[in-house]
Every structure is written in C-alpha cells, then in structure tokens.
C-alpha cells in the first residue's frame, strides 16, 4: 500500500522560506464568460446528447430551486437550500462519471442527483417528508439519498462524508469494481479535521476517490478569503498530501467535464486520488434561513452574475445551434409545471406511519424500543388531537 518515496532532503545552507507564494495554481477555463471557447483549449469528451442532458438538468435544478424557495416562503415546506450559480459543478461532474460510481455530497449537489435520474416526484417526497420519501421523512428537506442511484444519503454534519469517501473508495478498489467515489464539499467544510484525515488517508492508501471542493466564496456568512483560510484556497493543500490536484472554473461546464473526466481516469485506472477545486459563487442565500444582504454587497453578487454557468452554456449552445430560445422557454415551462404538479401531489401524501419511528434504529427494533412505541401509541390514543399527523391511523 505504502509507496516508498523518500523525503526531499537536498541540503541548503541558507534558510529557504516557503509560503503561499511558493506555488501558483492557475484555473482551468475552456468556455469563456462570453460563451465562446478559449482558442486551443484542451477539450473534454462530449457530444450533443451529453451537453443537452447537462443543460436540461441544470435548467431543471434551477427551476426546482426557484419553485421550492417560493414554496418555503409560502410555508409549504420548512426549509430549502438552492444551488443557484453552482449547477455546472454538480451536473457536469456527474456527467463525467459512470452511473456505478458512488456520489457523496454535502447538500448542494441536487444537480448530480438529478443527472443520475432522481425524479421530480422523488425530490418532492423528500422535501415534504411524506411516507413515500426514501428517507422516511426523518431528515430535513434536501437531505436526499438513493441507493439505486448510488447517491449516498446526505447528512448535515459537515465534512463527515470526506473520510467516508476514502473508505468507500478503498472498498471499491479492493473489490476490483472499476468504480470510483466522488465526494463534494464546500471550502468551509474543508476546514474540518475530517477533511485533513480524508485526504491524507486517501494519499496513503491510493484509492479511487475524487475530492471535489466547491469553493463558492462563502460558508454561510463567512467569506473564504482571509476568514476561512489564510492561503490561496484549497488546491495548494493537495500538494501537501502529494495528491493530484487541479483548480478549475466551476462555472464552466467544459472545464468541469474535462477535469472530472481525467480525474476519473486517474482514480480508476491509476488508483490516484484527485483533488479538484472548482471556483464559483453561491448566488442565493445559504438557505431559506439566511439573508445574505447582511454580509455581502449587491455589487459583488452582480460581478458574479455575468459568470453564470447556465447563461454561459446557453450562449454557447445557441451559437452552436444546439439550443434555441424556444427550447429554453418551453423546457422551463414544462419543468415548472411538472414541479408544481409533483409538489401538489407530494403535499397530499401522508406522513410515514408512527411505526416507522422505531424502525431502522437497528436492523430490528429492540424490545425496549417496542415497549416505548407501545407506550407512545397508548398516549396518542388518549390525546389524538394533539398528534394529528399520526393519530388517524395508529393501529
């Protein structure tokens, strides 16, 4: 497992100090902000179908986000968290993967899940915590998960999924699956101890994992530069771990595709863990609980609007003749209608049965849990009005 590299102990006799300036990591960009390619840029593998699917998924997610923020404002769901501005990161990276690869997200990667085929109904069932939710209504909205689609259930504690990705990839390697794991996280979560553990262990074990850092400039209200870290972002840390590392423009579908395709090859064919730092911007508030006007300026937000990943892709596709205004509008209208229909449907689905309260704590409910459930049911029978969600069908 261990690679036998020696430390660099070349001798100097005058102190040589290193610091953040000692390495300069540039950013890969293929599609310019104006929607045209850089001349001579290294292109990813792609065809029209792929790009159209990426586009449509990005548009779907953006529309879903908009509608659900509105639904939250109307009090129909309790919480929502949008990925506006970062759709290229999750969608185009998912597009570079095999469907058998495991995805471990932080919570802003609905794009990757949609790309994998999670249906609008499935999204809605989770968001409404109803009995059709794969997660049985146990976690807050946006904590999606789906074993069939190899999308690990999101958990709120930040950073925990990063060493888990290393472990998952270790299993994939040992089982000779030819698959890899991609692990998304924010530049904020990269401050957690788990990040350090994960990257160091991946580098030691040489497992097929892609660490995909979404550097969107903020962790809630905390700006990345100078308050989240003192160095030049996350990428230079990869060098410290002796790990293949690249920085890319996260708003450029082609840069994301290109880098992730190569990362996957490195991971799967050479068992090289890879760190990708994608530079982007969280265009919405952190979540529906947040109001970013308290900590950042309109100008800053506007500066980033012109870099919008979806606009940029659409410009290029239109130039290419792969998209026209009509399709955009039709698709938007269609998605919106689907979302609204699914929303209304999901709203009507009842909450999970009270018995689900004690299932899955263990593979089988323990005697004590069964006793606790029985007592609880007895109590609900006594006060049915106080527990309207479940009292109607307790037996």
């Amino acid at each position: 497992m261990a690679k036998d590299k020696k430390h660099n102990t070349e001798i100097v006799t005058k102190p040589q100090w290193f610091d953040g300036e000692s390495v300069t990591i540039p950013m890969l960009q293929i599609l310019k902000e104006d929607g045209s390619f850089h001349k001579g840029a290294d292109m990813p593998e792609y065809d029209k179908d792929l790009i159209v699917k990426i586009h449509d998924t990005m548009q779907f997610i953006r529309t879903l986000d908009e509608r659900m923020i509105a639904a939250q404002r109307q009090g129909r769901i309790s919480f929502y968290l949008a990925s506006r501005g970062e759709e290229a990161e999750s969608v185009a990276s998912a597009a570079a993967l095999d469907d058998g690869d495991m995805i471990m997200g932080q919570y802003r990667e609905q794009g990757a899940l949609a790309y994998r085929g999670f249906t609008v109904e499935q999204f809605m069932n989770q968001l409404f915590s109803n009995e059709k939710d794969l997660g049985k209504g146990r976690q807050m909205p946006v904590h999606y998960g789906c074993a069939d689609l190899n999308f690990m259930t999101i958990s709120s504690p930040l950073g925990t999924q990063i060493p888990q990705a290393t472990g998952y990839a270790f299993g994939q390697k040992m089982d000779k699956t030819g698959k890899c794991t991609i692990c998304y996280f924010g530049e904020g979560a990269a401050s957690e101890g788990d990040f350090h553990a994960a990257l160091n262990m991946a580098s030691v074990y040489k497992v097929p994992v892609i660490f995909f850092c979404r550097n969107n400039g903020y962790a809630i209200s905390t700006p990345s530069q100078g308050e989240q870290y003192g160095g030049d972002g996350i990428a230079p840390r990869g060098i410290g771990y002796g790990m293949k590392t690249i920085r890319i423009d996260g708003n450029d579908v082609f840069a994301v595709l290109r880098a992730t395709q190569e990362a996957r090859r490195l991971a799967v064919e050479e068992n090289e863990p890879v760190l990708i730092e994608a530079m982007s911007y969280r265009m919405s508030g952190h979540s529906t609980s947040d109001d970013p006007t308290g900590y950042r300026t309109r100008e800053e937000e506007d500066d980033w609007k012109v870099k919008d990943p979806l606009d940029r892709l659409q410009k290029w596709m239109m130039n290419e003749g792969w998209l026209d205004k009509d399709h955009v509008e039709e698709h938007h209208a269609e998605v919106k209608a689907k979302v609204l229909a699914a929303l209304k449907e999901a709203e009507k689905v009842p909450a999970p049965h009270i018995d689900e309260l004690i299932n899955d704590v263990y593979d089988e409910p323990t005697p004590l849990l069964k006793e606790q459930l029985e007592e609880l049911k007895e109590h609900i029978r006594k006060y049915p009005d106080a527990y309207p969600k479940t009292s109607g069908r307790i037996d």
Partner: protein
Amino acid sequence: MAKMNLLQAINSALDLAMAKHDNVYSFGEDTGGFGGVFRATSGLTEKYGKHRNFNTPLVEQGIIGFANGLASQGSYAVAEIQFGDYIFPAFDQIVNESAKFRYRSGNEFDVGGLTIRTPYGGGIAGGHYHSQSPEAYFAHTPGMKIVTPRNPYEAKGLLLSAIFDKNPVLFMEPKRLYRASTGEVPEEEYTIPLGKADVVKEGTDITVLGWGAQMEMTEKAVEKAEEDGVSCEVIDLRTILPWDVETVTQSVLKTGRLVISQEAPITGGFASEIAATVQDKCFLYLESPIARVSGIDVPYPLCHEKEYMADHLKIYEAIKRSMNY
C-alpha cells in the same frame, strides 16, 4: 428593567462581560460582524472591534482547541458552537482537555476562563442535526460545568456567572425559546449562582423537575395537574453539572414523588442520574417509582417530532400515574 427575549438577554450578558474586561473574546462560526446565525452576538463587533468578536473557520475542534489555549493564557474565551448537534467534533477537546486541564497540571494551569455557548434542543423542525440535547454526553465528565437557562432573566444571570466562573462551562441555550420566551430583565450586570437549583414553585404532593426548554413543558403540565388538585413542587435544575443534589432530595423527602423530564433520549440521559441518586438518598420516602418523561431511544426525528417530544401531556400523564400509583 427592560423587556427582552432570550436572545437579547444573552446578547446583553455578552455585551456587559466584554465591556467589563478587555480580555473577554467571543467567537465561533459566523459570530463576527454578522452576529451569528441566531444573532446572539450581533452588535459586538461594532462595539468591541473585530479582534474581540470574530468569525472562526469552520472547525469545531479548532474552535474549542483555540479557546482552551486562549483561556489557559488567562483570557476569557466565549466560544459559540453553532448548534449543539455540531459540538461532537470538539468532544475530545472538551472532555479530555478542558475538563482535565487544571487537575492534570496540579493547578499549574487551568482553562477557567472558558465558556462554550451552544443552542440546543428540538421543537423547531430541525431533524436529527438541529435538535439534539447533548447535556448527558458531557455530564459524565468531572471538571466541566453544564448550565442551561429556562427564560431570559435566568439566561443573562447564568451566562454572566458562567463567563466569569473559574471553571470551564458548557452553556446550553434553549433555541426553541430564543424568541418565544420574553420577560423583564435588568439592563445592568447581575449573576445567578451556578450549582444551585431553583424551586420555581413550592408544592407538597409531588416534585416535578426539569431544565432548559423542558421547563416550559413542565410548567404547562403542572398547571393541568394543579387543576386536578395535585400540589406540585417545580424545580429547575439550572446547573446540570455539578447538580444540586441537596435541593432535589430535600424536595423529594418532602413530597415522596418525583417526575423528571428531559428532551434527550431516555437511555443514558441525565434524568437517569438523578433518578439513581434520588432512589438511593430518599429510598424510604418514595411513594412511587421515580418517573422519567423523555425522548425515546431514536435519533431525533423530523416528521414525528411532535410524537417524539416529552411534551406537557406526557408529563401530565406521568404526574397522574405517579399520584395514582
């Protein structure tokens, strides 16, 4: 006196503490200029500067490690953990370091200036990770103090005591009550002693005990029980560690009955410690088993939150059961 909600009372305590000593620092995730996701630290940067109230990187083990070091240097370190559910990455720094700092050094060093503030508890549709009541995880740790207030007045007085107490204190803020609980609070500094439970209401038939946000549930239950003619003695534990064995046992020796309510899952909760101690100290006086009304042994749920909670109806039923035993 001024009308304040619980958040404002906390903010006022922080403000007064920082005004009192230059070396009181307040920090945590998003607690800087923005004032924290609940706004408990708002206005402090404007008033005391960005070196006194500031953001940390997103790393709880670092926040508490840093706070331990700062406190050991002689400063007052008031660290916020954004949600009690996210305190666990700092568990080692708390139970192995903060709690043992003075003891292991033979009193050469201590982190008495450390206070960890964290919002805790459920009832806000927060699911597994925005609802936990982790007090019992820490209450097995000699060297720590654990404090939780039930209303704005208590919050301010207890937090001021916690900040200037000579021991590390975990100060748990009932987030469900942040804005819901309001009351008259003195604008100036005052303290409420740590380690002393509060007999909120005297009574003779049964003792009903709780802490933090549970007190609201408890008081509602007691109201109902009193309507039935049961005279309840209500106690707010206030300090969970070290807890006030004396006040609680005195009460139970008088009433002969005890109901304890807590938000956390029942198994291994702090109510169990109280029950174990009280059955020992009051054995011959107990007229019915000590009842624990509590969350059940599952991760804090979302869609079944209402069913899960140790609400006033469940406490009321426990009082009745105890009376009718």
